[in-house]
């Protein structure tokens, strides 16, 4: 049975354990039928609909140990974020299972949970509590959070809808990074913010990693990946292609990208050549036509 299990925190053994993970999405029309199927046919699969399924991720197995920082690399749309969602437990796998031992701090969507009509202060308390922070803890850290997010004190009690998008993201990061959960999931959030803020984020993450916390990072920035990660998972076409150190994973990704670019260039060149040939032929034909014509226009 496919499932995501959350156990107590352990000191030995892998923190995240994925076995044969797979997620299936229905494509187009089948979405509508799936509702009927669920009520009438139960979970039985309709053999005729097999072609309409799409597996963004299938047969993925790996383990992550305590204190590891794992970078996930791969092209857009290969299932990196889906994998992160499975680990976070906000998506349920159709195949296999993933066991996560310990609480997860999701730095997936930093503005998640902020209500536009509430003030910055109210939102910090709301989202902090939603993630399991006690009120005393938030009281204690409040100054630090606001300070880190660089929110001017006059804006603290302003509704968040008047904040700039940068302010919201900064506040989100400042808050979530205060969570003391042992596992952190990071999805491209380092790409936000200006230079100075980015540097602060790096330092915060360094501190967390020094604290023996486990991190899974999805990013397209090779610099970020090299900086933090000691391991790399290369996801290719919905499957796990490589599970090694980050350098090899990046190298493999790079190679495939280069091969793909070369392939595309070759295709483009071929296309261009074909187009040129066609053009030449057309020109020739036109010239012939002109020659064959009565020449009335030429004079």
């Amino acid at each position, binding site marked *: 049975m496919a499932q995501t299990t959350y156990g107590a925190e352990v000191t030995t053994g892998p923190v995240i354990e994925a076995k044969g993970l797979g997620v299936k999405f229905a494509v187009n029309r089948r*979405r509508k039928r799936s509702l009927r199927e669920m009520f009438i046919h139960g979970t039985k699969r309709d053999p005729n609909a097999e072609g309409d399924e799409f597996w963004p991720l299938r047969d993925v197995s790996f383990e992550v140990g305590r204190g590891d920082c794992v970078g996930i690399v791969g092209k857009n749309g290969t299932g990196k974020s889906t994998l992160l969602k499975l680990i*976070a437990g906000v*998506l349920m796998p159709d195949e296999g299972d993933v066991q996560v031992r310990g609480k997860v701090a999701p730095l997936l969507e930093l503005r998640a*949970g902020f209500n536009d*009509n509430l003030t910055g202060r109210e939102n910090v308390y709301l989202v902090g*509590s939603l993630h399991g922070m006690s009120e005393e803890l938030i009281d204690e850290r409040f100054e630090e959070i606001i300070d880190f997010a660089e929110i001017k004190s006059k804006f603290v009690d302003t509704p968040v809808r008047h904040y700039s998008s940068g302010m919201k993201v900064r506040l989100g990061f400042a808050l979530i990074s205060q969570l003391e959960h042992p596992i952190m999931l990071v999805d491209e959030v380092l790409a936000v913010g200006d230079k100075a803020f980015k540097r602060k984020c790096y330092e915060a993450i360094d501190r967390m990693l020094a604290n023996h916390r486990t991190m899974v990072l999805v990013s397209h920035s090779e610099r970020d990946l090299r900086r933090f990660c000691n391991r790399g998972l290369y996801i290719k076409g919905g499957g796990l292609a490589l599970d090694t150190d980050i350098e090899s994973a990046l190298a493999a990704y790079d190679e495939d990208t280069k091969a793909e670019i070369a392939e595309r260039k070759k295709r483009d060149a071929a296309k261009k050549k074909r187009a040129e040939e066609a053009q030449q032929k057309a020109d020739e034909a036109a010239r012939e036509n002109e020659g064959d014509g009565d020449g009335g226009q030429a004079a």
Partner: protein
Amino acid sequence: MASRTLAVWEHRKVVGLLVRRDLKVKYQQSVLGYAWTMLEPLAMTMVYFFVFGVILNANRGMPTEEYGGFLLFLVAGILPWTTFGQILGEAPRAMITHAKLITTMKVPREIFPTATVGTKFIEYLLTWPILLVFVVVLGGRPSVMGVFVWLPLAVVLTFAFGLGLTLFLSSVNVLLRDVERLTRIVTRLLFYGSAILFPASMVLESDQVPGWAMTLYQLNPLLGIFQMHRAVWFAGFEELTPTTLALSSSVVGSILMLIIGYWTFRRLEMSVLKEL
């Protein structure tokens, strides 16, 4: 099922936070806050009172002045109905509005519909001061049976039915967005089908309604529930208490709705998470 219910209970703090957030947002946006939420049902009550009671003179078989009259009858039905109608109105969006939270936070997903219903429960409690004012001014007569049996039963069944319906509608609506529109139409039909504006006896004692239609009419669980809400305030006016059939269909219907709603919610949970 037991373990999931337990998980929701363990996350009751989160439910509380969501309820508090919704109330805060709702009441701080306008100065009149509370007054506004009360104004709407009261305005509707007045409209119905004048149209049906005064102009159309349709208050046959209703409690007379000495019992509190047509006006108390209307208020006692419309106030709980407003809450129920709001549950129906928000139920289809209970999951969609929380899409961002659901896709980033690992919590039992049931807490979002539960929070929606919880908010409405608090708002229902807030209608009580108004209701009591009407009861005192118009001279309603609460009965012992009414206060200790009908009232708690009515409240429990209203919210059990509401929660079941919210679980059902919130998950189905993610996959089939038409549900939202359909719900709006059904809500209107239910308003008239649940005898909010007239006593159910008007239908049940009519010569023009065939027997099967009467049975069908009483099978609507909401009919009994709202009859109970009203029966509390009319001691000695037995025509307003639900019939055995209406009573049993409210109890069975509410429990059934809760089970169906929960079952559907669990069944669709995986697809809902993918679509959000």
